[in-house]
């Protein structure tokens, strides 16, 4: 046992010492750089105990030395960081971290080291820093808060974040079950067994690596055998069943509305080597459960006495779990301090394992339960009507030397003779709190139970059924009966099973009869004053009984105020050990009973869950969907500089080697103006509408009229929302009398299709129109420039592209170099221009064919930025640039596209509202800067009158501004108040560098006003 001085021999006493330990193997690990060893089965906490390490961390505020208190999820003190570099993870509960070979762990919140932490100085000044002290100070001088705060921030926090990105993966999993059993202890297994027998699909989850809960550390027999034997056989039966799924290392993190549960499965934390085979570190389960059985057990409460936070004070249940399960002794000599019978189990187990016990100190004057009698019979010294009042320590508070014990009477000061008992650990029990967290996440209400002196589910909430200790049922036979009946009943609810049950379908159990608990919320220290002795309630956040009393005294009387003022229950353990004790302390301070004080709301998750798991598979290159157009690989191969547009990635421009973005854009623009360019416009929204009322629908969704459009022709349309603001635009083509093809903006494709469906289904269900989005069916390319026709005519095909045959704003269907195409003669650049659509799987090939055909005509691919400049030169708007959701078509000078004849279209009535119909609104104009080289910044504002400094009245803003290589100067479009009446005026744009750009208001068409270029 060398190196593990506190390891107990195997199978002492009742034969369970170190039950789960594989003593044949040793595991090496480190803590704060020190090499240590443990065994498979150990947690870091049990291994540290075995190695005699009691000081494991420093508290949040006072930096007091702290040791392990618990054995599971409720641990407030033993927070460590585990792993290195990208795998470094802070704030892990040592009680739940399973040991693996090479595990590196470190203590937290101390500097330079755990033993000589400089932060301990806070403890010396603790009187100056009671609850809420920061609200009262650090206010002078006014500018200094950031200075103080810097130090406060550095002192706060617990562990540190990783320095590198996380190399591990995560994933999600969905599941549906009839019955979800949360908790794999005796109650959970009994419920699962009867639910499965009734034919339900059952999932059982437990946060531990093993099932069985406290079966190995509780008294009582099932079918006359130790509980673990029944657990073993039940688990085997359930594992063999087709309709059962058992999960360990999985917490039920949250319960949400409609019985939707979030589970976190820790897949590789206990064995990181699994990741090499592709296992995710964590798997987040989203479970739809028809019924939930909550068998989450109970959490033991500590007792509130002076210096109850010293390393060596631990929960009574934890003490026996360390002995029974891990074969380690919590110390050399202990005292058990209790107000209930359960802690006697600890006294018995410790004594059986040969751990010396000085005394059981029981506040009750006449405890009479069966375990008490058993302990007395075993020769354990029990003192009654007494309490542990204080703890004496050495090693700067890190090691217990003795405790003080004195006669205790609730509500009065400690009097009488005080005794010192030498010991180095104290196992405490203040009773048990049902773990109702999950029950409360959604809407479950709890009620106060006088016997338990705690809250338990009030059962009025039918989505989750609590059983066993979680329901306040502790007697073993009653617990099994309740769980077993519940399992069958909820299975019946879920699957309507008709399986008959009899009483003999459940195992019979027996357990010692327990005596009554006596509530103890505060044990005063001896002497004249309690002051100066800290009685901790919330260990992790260093909230003492005095802090709670101070909050109450200052008028923070609502339990939520007290919680927020003192930070009670807001630490990483979310108050699992502190909530009820705090309410108990407040009964004195507020002079009211616990049920009247009430409890705070439990929030998900039950224990913290990793952000990585929440993100799941959607990380790195799978973070968000990327949509690719058919010639995507060509764009990549040709050095496209992509930009994200919605979910799409589109080429912004195609820089050649040595090109800047600016060079590339200018080259692309000029190639369109002078020769020919090719644009991948596949992202353009395409929606087909068919049916006898298709034209009628279009007349209602567009501001202009489509019923008059001739077959084979297209028309530009504007779509408003019901508030009258411009929402989308595009060219719609009539394919047949009852058949149209609508083009939308790239970003609007899905939205507009959904919008049309909504109107058709919810408002105009009498209209006969089918709407089919076909964006993805077609690759679509714009071929624009004086040579566009030549390029197309270079290719074999049956479409006549000549000016006479193929008019502007018309479309033809045919073949081009063999590919089936829809050709549209439309122009967004003002040049001679066609858009060619072909089924997407031919898109890449047609793209290549067009480039090849255009090679001798100087063809170049152009990107979205050239597209934007080209259209701006022509004064064409882009929805989202010139409009921003507050702009009407009239503001944009598009009144010609707004019908005055139609009775109704979407947005028509809203356009008549006073503010929208007002004169002198901001109107779209062009701007020419006085210095032609000066390009106005995007979004720059014009002012009514220049002043030395702000504020200045703003009269409008630049919506688009570019260097136009075509006209050889800067151009801009802007929305300016009453702009159309101000043509020729010069307006001022004060910039952030102090410069003022002067620009003349002009018509927004900068190039080829007559439209000669596109009509050739």
């Amino acid at each position, binding site marked *: 046992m060398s190196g593990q001085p506190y390891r107990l021999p195997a199978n002492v006493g009742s034969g369970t010492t170190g039950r789960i330990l594989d003593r044949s193997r040793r595991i090496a690990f480190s803590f704060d750089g020190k090499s240590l060893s443990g065994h498979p089965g150990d947690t870091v906490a049990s291994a540290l105990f075995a190695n005699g390490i009691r000081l494991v961390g420093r508290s949040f505020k006072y930096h007091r030395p702290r040791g392990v208190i618990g054995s599971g999820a409720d641990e407030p003190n033993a927070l460590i960081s585990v792993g290195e570099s990208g795998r470094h993870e802070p704030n892990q509960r040592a009680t739940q971290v399973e040991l693996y070979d090479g595990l590196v762990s470190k203590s937290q919140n101390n500097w330079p080291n755990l033993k000589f932490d400089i932060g301990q100085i806070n403890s010396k000044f603790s009187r100056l820093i009671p609850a809420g002290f920061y609200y009262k100070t650090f206010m002078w001088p006014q500018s200094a808060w950031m200075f103080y705060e810097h130090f406060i921030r550095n002192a706060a926090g617990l562990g540190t974040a990783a320095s590198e990105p996380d190399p591990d993966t995560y994933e999600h999993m969905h599941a549906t079950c009839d019955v979800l059993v949360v908790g794999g202890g005796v109650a959970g297994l009994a419920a699962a067994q009867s639910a499965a027998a009734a034919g339900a699909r059952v999932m059982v989850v437990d946060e531990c690596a093993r099932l069985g809960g406290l079966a190995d550390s509780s008294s009582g027999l099932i079918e006359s055998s130790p509980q673990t034997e029944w657990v073993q056989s039940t688990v085997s039966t359930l594992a063999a069943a087709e309709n059962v799924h058992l999960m360990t290392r999985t917490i039920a993190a949250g319960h949400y509305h409609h*019985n*939707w549960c979030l589970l976190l499965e820790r897949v590789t934390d206990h064995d990181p080597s699994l990741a090499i085979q592709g296992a995710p570190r964590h798997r987040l389960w989203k479970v*739809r459960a028809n019924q939930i059985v909550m068998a989450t057990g109970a959490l033991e409460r500590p007792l509130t006495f002076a210096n109850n936070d010293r390393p060596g004070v631990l929960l009574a249940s934890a003490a026996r779990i360390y002995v029974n399960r891990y074969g380690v002794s919590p110390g050399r000599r202990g005292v058990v301090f209790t107000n209930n019978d359960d802690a006697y189990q600890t006294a018995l187990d410790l004594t059986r394992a040969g751990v010396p016990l000085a005394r059981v100190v029981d506040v009750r004057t006449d405890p009479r339960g069966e375990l008490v009698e058993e302990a007395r019979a075993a020769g354990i010294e029990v003192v009654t009507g007494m309490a542990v009042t204080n703890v004496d320590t050495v090693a700067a508070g890190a090691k217990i030397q003795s405790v003080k014990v004195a006669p205790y009477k609730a509500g009065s000061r400690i009097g009488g003779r005080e005794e010192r008992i030498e010991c180095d650990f104290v196992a405490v029990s203040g009773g048990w709190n049902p773990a109702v967290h999950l029950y409360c996440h959604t809407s479950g209400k709890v009620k106060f139970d006088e016997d338990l002196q705690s809250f338990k589910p009030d059962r009025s909430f039918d989505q989750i059924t609590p059983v066993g200790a979680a329901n306040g049922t502790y007697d073993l036979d009653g617990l099994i009966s309740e769980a077993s009946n519940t399992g069958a009943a909820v299975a019946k609810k879920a699957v309507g099973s008709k399986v008959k049950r009899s009483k003999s379908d459940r195992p019979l159990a027996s357990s010692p009869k327990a005596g009554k608990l006596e509530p103890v919320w505060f044990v005063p220290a001896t002497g004249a004053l309690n002051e100066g002795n800290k009685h901790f309630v919330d260990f992790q956040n260093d909230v003492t009984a005095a802090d709670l009393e101070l909050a109450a005294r200052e008028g923070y009387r609502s339990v939520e105020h007290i919680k927020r003022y003192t930070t009670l229950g807001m630490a990483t353990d979310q108050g699992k050990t502190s909530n009820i004790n705090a309410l108990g302390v407040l009964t004195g301070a507020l002079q009211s009973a616990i049920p009247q004080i009430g409890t705070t709301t439990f929030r998900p998750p039950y224990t913290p869950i990793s952000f990585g798991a929440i993100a799941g598979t959607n990380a790195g290159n799978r973070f968000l969907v990327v949509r690719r157009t058919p010639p995507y690989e060509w764009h990549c191969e040709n050095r496209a500089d992509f930009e994200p547009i919605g979910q799409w990635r589109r080429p912004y421009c195609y820089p050649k080697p040595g090109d800047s973005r600016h060079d590339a854009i200018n080259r692309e623009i000029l190639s369109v103006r002078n020769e020919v360019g090719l644009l991948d416009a596949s992202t353009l929204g395409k929606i087909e509408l068919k049916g006898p009322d298709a034209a009628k629908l279009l007349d209602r969704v567009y501001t202009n009229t489509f019923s008059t459009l001739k077959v084979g022709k297209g028309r530009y349309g504007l779509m408003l929302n019901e508030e009258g603001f411009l929402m989308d635009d595009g060219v719609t083509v009539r394919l047949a009398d009852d058949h149209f093809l609508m083009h939308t903006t790239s970003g609007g494709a899905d939205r507009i299709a959904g919008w049309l*469906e909504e109107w058709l289904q919810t408002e105009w269900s009498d209209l006969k129109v089918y709407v089919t989005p076909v964006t993805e069916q077609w690759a679509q390319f714009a071929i624009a420039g004086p040579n566009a026709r030549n390029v197309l005519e270079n290719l074999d095909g049956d479409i006549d592209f000549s000016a006479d045959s193929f008019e502007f704003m018309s479309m033809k269907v045919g073949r081009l170099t063999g590919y089936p195409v829809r050709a549209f003669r439309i122009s967004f650049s003002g040049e001679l221009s066609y858009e060619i659509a072909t089924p997407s799987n031919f898109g890449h090939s047609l793209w290549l064919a067009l480039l090849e055909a255009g090679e001798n005509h100087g063809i170049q691919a152009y990107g979205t930025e050239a597209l934007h400049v080209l259209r701006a030169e022509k004064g064409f708007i882009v929805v989202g640039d010139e409009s921003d959701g507050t702009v009407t078509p009239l503001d944009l000078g598009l009144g010609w596209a707004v019908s005055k004849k139609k009775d109704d279209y979407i947005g*028509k009535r809203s356009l008549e509202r006073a503010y929208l119909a007002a004169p002198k609104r901001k109107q779209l104009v062009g701007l020419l800067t006085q210095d032609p080289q000066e390009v106005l910044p995007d979004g720059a504002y014009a002012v009514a009158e220049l002043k030395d400094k702000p504020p200045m009245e703003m009269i409008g803003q630049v919506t688009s501004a570019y260097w136009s290589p075509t006209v050889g100067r800067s151009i801009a479009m802007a929305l300016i108040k009453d702009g159309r009446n101000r043509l020729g005026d010069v307006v001022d744009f004060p910039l952030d560098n102090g410069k003022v750009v002067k620009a003349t208001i002009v018509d927004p068409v900068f190039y080829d006003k007559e439209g000669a270029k596109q009509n050739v």
Partner: protein
Amino acid sequence: MLMITCPVCGAEGDETDFHCGGQAHISRPASTDPHNVSDDAQRDYLYIRNNPKGLHREMWMCARGCGKWFHAERDTVTLEFKSYYGITESAPPSSSPNPAASKTTKKKSAGR
């Protein structure tokens, strides 16, 4: 997480499979009388909402199933769905509407 069953196609799913379209039975004045819509009526149509604490009639769409819209009655406090009915059906009489909202608890489109 809301669990929803589409009354049109029977698909069951959670709220990520459906789309909430907000309050149901809002009448669109322009659809019925385009020449005579007051500013008040247009404001009510665009902005005024029932927003009850309790039973609420809504439009939902089976976004990942059949793509159809339907009506639902849902409690906005417990979030329970109380009933589903067709998108062209008027509100079921079984449940009591929010009294303050009675003037707009009409079908979204008159004449259906």
